[in-house]
């Protein structure tokens, strides 16, 4: 071994590395780090192992399902490299124990995360601790690895990452046009209304011309009387949401002027009356009250989750699933949230979404597809993770050797671009307008008389700015903060402030006010210039406030935050996922020295029979009450 190699080996051997994430990328990464000679590795992951992980997270076995990923990964790697030091933490990286001092002990941090929130958090801690960060992400066959060194390269947030996709409330409640809208309706409205927390605000009630009387009626409809026949109750709900509600919506002529009208669907036209006698399924089932593994499909003779059901089958599943919830899982009703691994919930949501889709002339989807959309499932394979892990280790070694000229962002492409399947690009310099690493002030347009402090905290500080434990100040006045050490008076004060509109706060926030927003754990401080604005477009600006000041860095040319089902090969900006998919548009990332336009005819290669489903961005319905028109 020559001196250069010796130097490399010694920087590897002496390095202390932090891995965040022990999932798809994490397993491959831990293995490759160990084989490459790394001897001191710490790994944080809050998840436990699930069956669907096993197709790629090869350090895990079926017998490990339910156990901590970080711990099992560690044990598995020690088996072929027994003498290295691996410390595992079964915890959330956002925990206060992982503060700046914790991060400071490492020579490099390697991310294998699956959500934007945690990535931003780690980014800030790495900046605060001045520790280099190697970021990564994969989705199907696409992947990327990027290097972030404070002062030398962009930080992870220098280029705005698209926030999780949200849909305007009215699209979900009244005018869906895509299947995903139906899923959101079925999951966040109907399922939540029937089985979730009764005290939660729910936009399911349809606006009728006579608002007062209709809202009283809908309350009664969803409440099931003590001895009400389950089948009858099911049909009642069916008729209400797919029949009467649609008719009520149709009565509003304005809405349908330029839109396809939905058609109301009633249970008696789809399902024969004697259904419950024919099947006698639920009633005749064994007397066990609690059975979390019940499923409607086998009772109806449906075996293939990839099969497309028609209206009748969907309706059967709807009623049957609903009945099963009440017959077999009664205790959970009122406390349930949708879980993609809850078979019955997935069946119900699929059926409900499909019936609604049928009503609105939107193509139906199989349970398999619906589950992917409702559960924000990201498609993932072992090979991409393995490739990305290799690339991460290569960048990590460069970082340890401080080989700054050699740092690269590397993109794994599905189809070659200028002959390249793996494309390295020089990192960009820090964005001088980045509010995270360059402390640029932001501008917030908001109606200071209507918007409350709570809206600011939820939509801006937490969601957009990604702060975990925020603190909001106006001048010398502390408007809000989160922490364990607050006394009751302070907490009460802050709670009161949350409910006040900005202009009514003890220190009024009006046009021209400057707020300081901080997160002490992330050591991030931002200034927000407030500008009052009266009106906001409900469709384009559903949150009623607009944050700007995220100046795009020079090399970028805008981004698309969403894809439609049939778009081919445009790199997907998927954010939330189970396997870490941070994908920037190819065009956006290429440095200026590469002149060729990569947007030649991109060929989506598929065989005739299957349709690869594009995974949509995660969906979030704004839970606020509808605006008064």
């Amino acid at each position, binding site marked *: 071994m020559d001196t250069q190699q010796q130097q490399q080996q010694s920087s590897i051997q002496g390095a202390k590395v932090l891995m965040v994430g022990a999932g798809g990328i994490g397993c491959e990464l831990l293995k490759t780090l160990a084989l490459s000679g790394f001897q001191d590795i710490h790994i944080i992951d809050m998840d436990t192992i699930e069956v669907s992980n096993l197709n790629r997270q090869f350090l895990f076995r079926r017998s490990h399902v339910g156990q901590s990923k970080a711990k099992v990964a560690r044990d598995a790697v020690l088996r*072929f490299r027994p003498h290295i030091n691996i410390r595992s933490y079964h915890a959330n990286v956002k925990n206060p124990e992982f503060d700046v001092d914790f991060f400071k002990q490492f020579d490099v941090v390697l991310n294998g995360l699956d959500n934007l929130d945690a990535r931003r958090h780690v980014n800030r801690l790495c900046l605060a601790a001045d520790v280099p960060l190697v970021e990564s992400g994969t989705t199907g066959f696409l992947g990327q690895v990027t290097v972030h060194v404070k002062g030398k390269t962009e930080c992870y947030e220098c280029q705005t990452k698209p926030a999780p996709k949200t849909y305007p409330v009215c699209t979900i409640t009244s005018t869906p046009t895509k299947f995903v809208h139906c899923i959101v309706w079925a999951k966040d409205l109907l399922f939540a209304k029937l089985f979730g927390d009764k005290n939660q605000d729910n936009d399911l009630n349809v606006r009728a011309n006579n608002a007062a009387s209709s809202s009283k009626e809908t309350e009664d409809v969803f409440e099931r009387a003590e001895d009400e026949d389950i089948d009858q109750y099911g049909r009642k709900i069916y008729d209400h949401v797919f029949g009467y509600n649609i008719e009520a919506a149709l009565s509003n002529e304005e809405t349908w002027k330029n839109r396809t009208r939905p058609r109301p669907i009633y249970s008696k036209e789809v399902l024969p009356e004697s259904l419950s006698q024919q099947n006698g399924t639920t009633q005749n089932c064994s007397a066990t009250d609690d059975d979390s593994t019940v499923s409607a499909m086998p009772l109806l003779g449906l075996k293939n989750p990839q099969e497309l059901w028609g209206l009748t089958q969907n309706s059967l599943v709807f009623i049957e699933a609903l009945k099963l919830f009440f017959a077999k899982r009664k205790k959970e009703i009122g406390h349930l949230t949708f879980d993609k691994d809850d078979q019955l919930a997935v069946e119900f949501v699929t059926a409900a979404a499909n019936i609604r889709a049928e009503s609105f002339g939107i193509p139906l989807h199989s349970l398999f597809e619906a589950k992917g959309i409702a559960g924000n499932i990201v*498609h993932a394979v*072992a090979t991409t993770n393995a490739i990305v892990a290799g690339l991460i280790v290569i960048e990590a070694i460069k970082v340890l050797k401080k080989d700054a000229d050699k740092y690269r962002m590397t993109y794994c492409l599905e189809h070659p671009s200028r002959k390249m399947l793996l494309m390295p690009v020089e990192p960009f310099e820090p964005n001088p307008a980045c509010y995270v690493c360059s402390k640029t002030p932001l501008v917030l347009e908001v109606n200071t008389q209507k918007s409350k402090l709570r809206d600011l905290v939820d939509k801006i500080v937490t969601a957009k700015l990604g702060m975990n434990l925020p603190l909001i100040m106006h001048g010398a006045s502390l408007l809000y903060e989160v922490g364990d050490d607050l006394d009751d008076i302070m907490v009460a004060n802050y709670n009161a402030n949350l409910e006040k509109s900005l202009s009514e706060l003890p220190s009024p926030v009006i046009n021209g006010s400057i707020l300081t927003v901080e997160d002490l754990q992330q050591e991030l401080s931002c200034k927000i210039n407030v500008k009052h604005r009266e009106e906001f477009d409900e469709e384009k600006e559903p949150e009623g406030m607009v944050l700007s000041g995220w100046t795009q860095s020079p090399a970028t040319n805008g981004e698309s935050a969403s894809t439609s089902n049939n778009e081919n090969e445009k790199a997907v900006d998927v954010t939330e996922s189970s396997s870490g998919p941070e994908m920037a548009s190819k065009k956006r990332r290429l440095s200026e020295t590469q002149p060729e336009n990569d947007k030649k005819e991109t060929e989506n290669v598929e065989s005739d029979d299957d349709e690869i489903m594009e995974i949509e961005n995660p969906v979030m319905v704004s839970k606020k009450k509808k605006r008064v028109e």
Partner: protein
Amino acid sequence: MKKNSLDKEVLLSRFSRLNLRMDGEELTEQETALYDRQIRVWGANAQRRLTKSHILVSGIKGTVAEFCKNIVLAGVGSVTLMDDSLVNEEALNANFLIPPDENAYRGKTVAEICCDSLKDFNPMVLVSVEKGDLSARSTEFFEKFDVVVIGYGSLATKKAVNEKCRKLSKRVAFYTVDCRDSCGEIFVDLQDYKYTKKKLEEKVECELNFPSFQEAVSVPWKPIPRRTAKLYFAMRVIEVFEENEGRKHGECSLLDLPTVLEIKKKLCEANTVSESHVPDSLLERLITGTIEFPPACAIVGGILAQEVIKAVSGKGEPLKNFFYYDAQDGKGVMENISNSFTS
């Protein structure tokens, strides 16, 4: 020589697996649950085809270990391993399939140890060992397989096996892979390969004609485009060196550099190209870097697995016909090298 026979256990499990399959083409519930995330990538039909495929792998070091891990996880039908070399300290490097317990591996071949580890990753895949010399196998032997992968093979072996595969009426996909220092080369031969491609909402029928290995490594250098990866040429020099000197992969050192450079000089002259066509520094790296670089193994092993999955599933445009990776410049490039340059 004893004709190879699978041991009883393997035969029984193979038979019982056939019973499962007899029920028609559907994936079992267990398979659907396990492969859910990848089915969302390539679809259920592709997954079904994978489950019926048989892969032969010869020559197991770090990169091939990665490759095997990947295809086993993907859920191929069977993987047959050929590597009679005994496990030693060197084999432990970059091969995470070999637990570093001398008591466990003493006297066992690399294929045997890897077989046990691989089975663990996915009990639904049949992993077995085939002993003996790959190049001594008859043409009929290869008919059992859908894919043949030769790792770190000699020039003669690669040529001979490729020819046998091409003789069969059944199309057997043929791959070679070689990793040295932090570089890697993959060669692909799918003969005449038909597939459909979606082009602007329309489905287009495509066909690719792959040159044989013999043809691909004998292409005259002069007409090959300037920007072609230097590794192509460097690997051809190494191939000749190893053949001339009777060396196996990795049996070389800096002391061999003069010999290698001589060969390079002769090849460049024969091809009427200047010696700068093949950088000396690259050749030096390839003969001194006898130990594989684990990150490069992961990368090249991953790309190779992706290609095999594509070919078996019939989904996705295959790489044609060489792939090169070099950690030094970080590029992973596809090179299309055939006699079409001369025409």
